[in-house]
């Protein structure tokens, strides 16, 4: 998780580079450009996941990886264009904010291959990696309802945007599916990008939700989530993490994490592209492809009872087979 390049001693980086070059010299290296969102590669959540996926590809597939972090949105287009000009073989944009930029640059350079996470673009040279967050939210909703003793649960969103509304809607449906009488408290941290990085406010909201009787909170708020985990530990309640597996952050207080396997999606896309199997169009990752899942590891073994696990698996298969239709905010809105 914390595998960052930064703190490594220089010689190791050097060695890595030498090895990489050595391995990839014979065939000319497959070059991947990764444009990260404003959050940057260390947000322990969404961008981290994308970066991890690309890093894994770098190690295992011997590709050449270059990543940049957006300073401001005006530069996104420029960054994609720069990668395209340098004839990178695959350019990956992370986050919905890049959709416009990718769409424009991709239309101008049809020979270039693009991928975008969380943005839906219909173009032959763009692969859109979409996630069915509502499905996973439904599953963790069921788990939350089972774990709750008070019959009241909470949801804390980061920035109030449709994407996070989608999390909320799925979660709500999941909770009510398990316990139709459950009470659900909802809060959003903010309406600007700051909301992804405001643990203090998140903690405040969590404490107030606990006071209102909630005892499990699902938080989908990027780096702000740590504030909720703090509050959870303080009040001895439970929280549910998001995107990456966050169970390790406060073992014993994090019921589970809803996984959005951006790393897997990025890795698979790179792999396919390298093997010449790149296809344009939208690929949706859901429970079926395990691009969306819930986390079960040594940190939350004791919290998830066998009964809960059984129920979760049951729900999962019901969603996959279509027996349960999870409401999707994107579709209900239109």
């Amino acid at each position, binding site marked *: 998780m914390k595998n960052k390049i930064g703190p490594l001693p220089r010689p190791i980086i050097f060695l890595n580079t030498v090895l990489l070059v050595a391995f990839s010299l014979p065939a000319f290296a497959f070059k991947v450009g990764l444009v990260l969102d404003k959050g940057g590669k260390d947000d322990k959540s969404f961008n981290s996941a994308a970066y991890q996926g690309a890093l894994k590809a770098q190690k295992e597939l011997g590709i050449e990886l270059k990543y940049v972090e957006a300073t401001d949105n005006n530069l996104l287009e420029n960054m994609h264009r720069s990668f395209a000009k340098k004839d990178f073989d695959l350019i990956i944009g992370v986050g919905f904010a890049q959709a416009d930029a990718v769409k424009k640059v991709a239309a101008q350079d049809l020979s270039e291959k693009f991928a975008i996470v969380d943005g839906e673009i219909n173009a032959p040279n763009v692969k859109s990696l979409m996630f069915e967050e509502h499905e996973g939210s439904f599953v963790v909703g069921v788990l939350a309802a089972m774990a709750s003793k008070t019959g009241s649960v909470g949801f804390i969103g980061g920035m109030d945007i449709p994407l996070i509304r989608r999390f909320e809607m799925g979660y709500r449906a999941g909770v009510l599916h398990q316990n139709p009488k459950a009470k659900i408290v909802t809060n959003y941290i903010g309406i*600007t990008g700051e909301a992804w990085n405001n643990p203090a406010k998140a903690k405040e909201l969590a404490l107030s939700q606990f006071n209102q009787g909630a005892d499990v909170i699902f938080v989908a708020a990027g780096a702000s989530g740590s504030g909720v985990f703090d509050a959870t530990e303080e009040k001895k309640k439970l929280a549910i993490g998001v995107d990456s597996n966050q169970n390790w952050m406060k073992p014993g207080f994090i019921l589970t994490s809803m996984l959005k396997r951006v790393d897997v999606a990025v890795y698979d896309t790179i792999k396919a592209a390298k093997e010449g199997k790149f296809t344009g169009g939208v690929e949706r990752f859901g429970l079926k492809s395990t691009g969306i899942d819930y986390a079960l590891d040594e940190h939350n073994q004791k919290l998830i009872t066998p009964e809960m696990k059984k129920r979760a698996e049951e729900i999962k298969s019901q969603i996959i087979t279509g027996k349960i239709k999870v409401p999707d905010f994107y579709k209900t809105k239109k």
Partner: protein
Amino acid sequence: MKRALLGFVVGMTVCLSLTWFAGENPFHVLSVLFKSAFGSWDDLALTLFYTTSLIFTGLSVSIAFHAGLFNIGAEGQLNIATVVTTGVGLFFTFWFPPTHVAVALIYSVASVLAGLLAGGFWGFLPGYFKVKRDAHEVILTMMLNFVAAGLAASFVTNNQNPNSQNPESSPVSPLMSWQPWDPLHKLAPDTPFNISFLFAVAAALILGVLLYKSRWGFEIRSTGLNEEAAQMNSIPAPKVKILAMCLAGLFAGGVALNEIFGAHMKYRLGFSPEYGFIGIAVALLARNHPWAILLSAFLFGALQKGAGDLDLETNAITRDFAKVMQAILILSVSSFSLWKGKKK
């Protein structure tokens, strides 16, 4: 000016040596920065796009400085101006959809004027309370930044573009765009660079003349330098201060030209990479002279753009390094300029 240049060279040298410590070849860094600003039409245009907004906010900060006030509210002023410009534009778009280009042009000009006035009003508020209530303008402008951000967010929530995940408003009618007849846009159609650049340059030139040649320029500077003497000698200092803050807001509002009709046609939450705050540095570097602001805005525009390119073209330097460079440059240039002041 010579001193400022010397300070720039020294600051640049310090920055480049830092890159060397970080494990980069400083000449490579320099060439990346240079290419980032001048490498191609598109590069230059994108730099100039930043420059345009920075000229406006630099002027905003400097005119307040001239009146002895510290306007750290340019960020809020430009936000309000941009929101109102978009809001009025959307109002026309939905209620009186333009059918003809000429009508659309009138609409767009009306929207821009409304935006500028709103920016001016956002400057007027702290000016008024400073004068009448003796409230501190730094606190006021800072707080009004938050109010503006809140209003902008609520504006976007209520006018969310249904076709986008991004927090942005619906676009105004494409007929109102200036791009079809904008000669500057044609130079670099792939960038948001637009005619507003000319407006910004003109604004700086005109402000320079007015500030140093006209009566109100004299009154503003006198008030800023010695309020008591101004007041004893026919200059209504309180009014002058309010006026200066209104103008500051108005100039900051100029960013709306660059952002809306010049380029994006919609209000995007967080569109400004803190133009208002970089504007303070721009004004400082130019020592508040409107003409020098043209240069210093370009420099900071280039750094803003260079930040992304450095990240892209080098291994060790990240976007944060550009912030470090900005800071070092401000420090070195202003200290060199001040050194001259003390020596005399």
